């Protein structure tokens, strides 16, 4: 199919594209974001202007960006995949050089009023590049070692840069996000088996390195692991957050304590309740019903993305959609697993719900790509 086919064929053009958006996805995203606004009102003690209002403006801007990006045809995305990736790598290097110290790790660059977090942007551009790579690579070569090594390097380069920030969580997400694209692209399962085995080996080595000269993680990261393994060992120190989070979550019960009635979150037993622990507030105030509703909405978002991807005959578009929805999946499942005490505590936002600009913008950017893929799918 030529470029001409692309335009002449059944693809909608101009303003009409808006009719071809993945509207269920738009509404699901808006629904999840609305839950976020509600929870931000709750954690601000009923005040709208503390967190909910700025978040609403950001979300509105994000919606505009998403819809705007949906109009951009796929050839453009394919075209900028390499420059975007290179730019992101350079930005990551830049962070190392001129980054601001924040939360114990250098993670962002201030460009005027915009606080840029290149590691977040990397999640999208990596998916873009890998999708373009597998679109270009003939399927029969996908599992050849050399052709597997290339994407591995493409993934590990930014991962390494993020790791030395150090930001273990994002590194893992980059690896997993890239892995999802490779997995769907058809790379032989043997490679995944080997990587998982290697990962287990690496974890063992990391744990072994503790207290030695070549310690691979910062002390606080080791403490998080300890706390994860036994949160009650240090209930007022490192384990405090997890214990309080679990108490809040569990005490929500079936239907929760009611809006603004969560004692744990009201009384500051919960840390960072407007960002990383916002799911706990939801679970405390709206109980199992509320928590499952959000999980259901997330699952539907993934479902619609996957359906869109699998019904898209454009390999590039498919892979982008799967990669971005996979990243989104990693976001919420890691956050939820963390606050439930199933994963070691690490700062990760709940996508579309947590207060914060960067992750929201990146997600909306990602969904913009998903929408573009959906709008421009070959008919």
């Amino acid at each position, binding site marked *: 199919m030529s470029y001409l086919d692309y335009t002449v064929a059944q693809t909608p053009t101009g303003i009409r594209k808006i009719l071809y958006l993945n509207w269920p996805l738009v509404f699901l995203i808006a629904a999840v974001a609305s839950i976020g606004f509600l929870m931000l009102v709750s954690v601000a003690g009923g005040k709208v202007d503390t967190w909910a209002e700025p978040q609403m403006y950001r979300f509105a801007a994000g919606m505009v960006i998403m819809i705007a990006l949906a109009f951009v045809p796929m050839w453009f995305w394919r075209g900028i995949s390499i420059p975007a990736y290179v730019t992101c790598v350079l930005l990551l290097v830049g962070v190392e050089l001129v980054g601001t110290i924040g939360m114990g790790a250098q993670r962002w660059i201030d460009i005027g009023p915009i606080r840029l977090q290149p590691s977040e942007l990397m999640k999208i551009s990596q998916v873009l590049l890998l999708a373009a790579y597998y679109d270009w690579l003939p399927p029969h070569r996908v599992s050849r070692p050399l052709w597997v090594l290339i994407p591995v390097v493409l993934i590990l380069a930014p991962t390494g840069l993020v790791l030395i920030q150090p930001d273990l969580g994002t590194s893992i997400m980059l690896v997993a996000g890239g892995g999802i694209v490779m997995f*769907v*692209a058809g790379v032989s399962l043997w490679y995944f088996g080997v990587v998982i085995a290697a990962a287990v080996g690496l974890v063992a080595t990391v744990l072994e390195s503790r207290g030695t000269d070549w310690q691979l993680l910062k002390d606080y990261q080791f403490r998080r692991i300890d706390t994860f393994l036994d949160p009650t060992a240090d209930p007022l120190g490192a384990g405090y957050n997890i214990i309080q989070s679990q108490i809040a979550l569990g005490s929500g019960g079936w239907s929760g304590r009611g809006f603004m009635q969560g004692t744990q979150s009201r009384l*500051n037993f919960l840390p960072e309740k407007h960002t990383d622990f916002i799911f706990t507030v939801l679970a405390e105030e709206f109980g199992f019903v509320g928590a499952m509703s959000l999980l259901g909405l997330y*699952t539907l978002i993934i479902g619609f993305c996957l359906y869109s991807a699998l019904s898209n005959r*454009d390999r590039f578009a498919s892979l982008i959609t799967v990669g971005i929805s996979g990243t989104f999946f990693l976001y919420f499942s890691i956050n939820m697993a963390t606050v439930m005490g199933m994963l070691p505590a690490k700062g990760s936002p709940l996508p579309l719900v947590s207060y914060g600009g960067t992750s929201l913008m990146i997600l909306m950017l990602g969904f913009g790509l998903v929408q573009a893929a959906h709008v421009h799918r070959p008919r």
Partner: protein
Amino acid sequence: MTNAPRQNDASGRGITRRGLMLAGIQLGVVTTLALKLRSMQVEQAEQYRMLADGNSIKIRLLVPARGLIHDRNGIVIAGNEQNYRVTLTREEAGGDVEPVLHRLARLIPISDARMAELLDEFSKRSAITPIVLADRLTWEQFSSIAVNAPALAGVTPESGLSRVYPRGGDLAHVLGYVGPVSDYDLSKIENPDPVLMLPEFQLGKVGFEARMEEHLRGKAGQRRVEVNSAGREMRQLSRQEGEQGATVQMTIDAQLQNYAAQRMGQESAAAVVIDVQTGDIVTICSSPSFDPNKFVRGISSPDYKALMNHDHRPLADKTVQGVYPPGSTFKMVTLLAGLESGVINAGSRFYCPGYTTAGGRRFHCWRKGGHGTVDAVTSLSHSCDVYYYELAQKVGIDRIAAMARKLGLGQRHDLPMSAVAEGIAPDRAWKQARYGQAWQVGDSLNASIGQGYVLASPLQLAVMTARIASGLEVRPRLVRAIDGVAQPVPDFPALDVNPAFLRVARAGMDAVMNSDTGTARRSRIIREDWRMAGKTGTSQVRNITAAERARGVVSNDQLPWNRRDHALFVCFAPLDAPRYAVSVIVEHGGGGSTVASPIARDILLFALNGGLPPLDAVPGDQRDAMEERHNAMHLFAPDAPRLTRA
């Protein structure tokens, strides 16, 4: 890379297969998350709910209002007043309390020493603990702080209840007082009520307040409050007021008590008035007294020293705690022992030459020339000692002691007061046990006139008199009703003494007052329907040496105060249908007939009249003096109990 979309069936199928695998994996993860949620929020919800409540909900106790104490007519004799105070919380003051304290010092006086003490306390206590800066503020001070609250960050004006005794010192000894709980108090109590740990709680320390603590305390209320992770109170969830302690009505008549206190003035004295039919203690007053309100508020060291060093011992309760040789008031006991044992009868006579000799010693009658021939009635009316010396030798101490016990001496009357004394009704076994010595005949002689080993409290003497007057085994009581429920009026059995002999004793006591030669004739009541019977007593606090006696007995007036005799008097009225028995002791007052009997008579008159003694009830020559005394008294109006000097 080209800009053309790549599309072939093989890759499309591959993507579909792997995409479905991915969907499966993702579904698995979502299911795991959902199951974990279910296990936490549905299966273990109860446990987490308990943990959460324990985290955030604290129970704060509310000090219950202490039960009121009423007199027999419903006058409040122990109440509660608003106590205005200010507290300061360091955290709310922004960490540095000193500037706030200096600003506050412009509104209320805070001495430099107190300031240093407070700063020290703030440095030691947690930043969220409110610390009391000043207590018992006036309304003006309190409101000036409230108005200036915006400039005084962290300062909270609070009001609470505090015990107050509207009758001041009148009832100080019987009521006792309350105070903050000390470590010593806690050490004495097993499983102390948690409310005792509250700084503002007041515990009955002594007297009625202490003995009736369980009734007066009430039940603590509860406030369920939400606290944040730092322990700071965020809001109140529920408030359950405590139950006020029971209102306890005493048998005391506050008006009579007030009169008795005023009548005794600054004498070191005690007076007990008892209802001879019911045993109600109508008045039990020790003088001089002290202001119990000072103890509630924390008495200052100079005030306390002044009380401790006062030679009239204002802190001592002379009514139940003080024991004295009863002197001649004991003679009814010896007489009744003689009559009951059959050694004598009412007509038996002894000759009094002014002394008798026993055990190689000479025992003197108080009247140097002697009383001549004396019978039972005149032995009392003249208070002849020799009659009792002779009688005691015939009756023996054991029967005297037995009679003393029948009349309520030498035993503890269990009143809800502190340190109720047992007194001593000595007998042979007692002396053997106490001193390891055999009883001497001289001991009997001394005991027969209430000297020597005999010791009795004014309460016991009042009970004795009540028993003689009513012929009933009267037992004293102080509690009339608890929480509106009247205590049953006791139905006392008849006294185990022949009523005919009691009539002899009463006739003798009548003669003391009303016969022409009675020792207390001057203090008689001239109204026939209130005809009064009594007995004087004078107890020596020193031995009169032979040399002194040779020089002539020195008049009490010429002795230093603390070596003078104690003056005692017991009485009851009306003679025909006795209602009240009174005992009065004036320490170092000299003779019972001159000092103690007019006081006892006036108190008795007040009791009978239900108000100030009518002047026409006393002999004409005493009316002016009585009126003058009444005018000088500061009596409480019965209906408006005012606060005494603070």
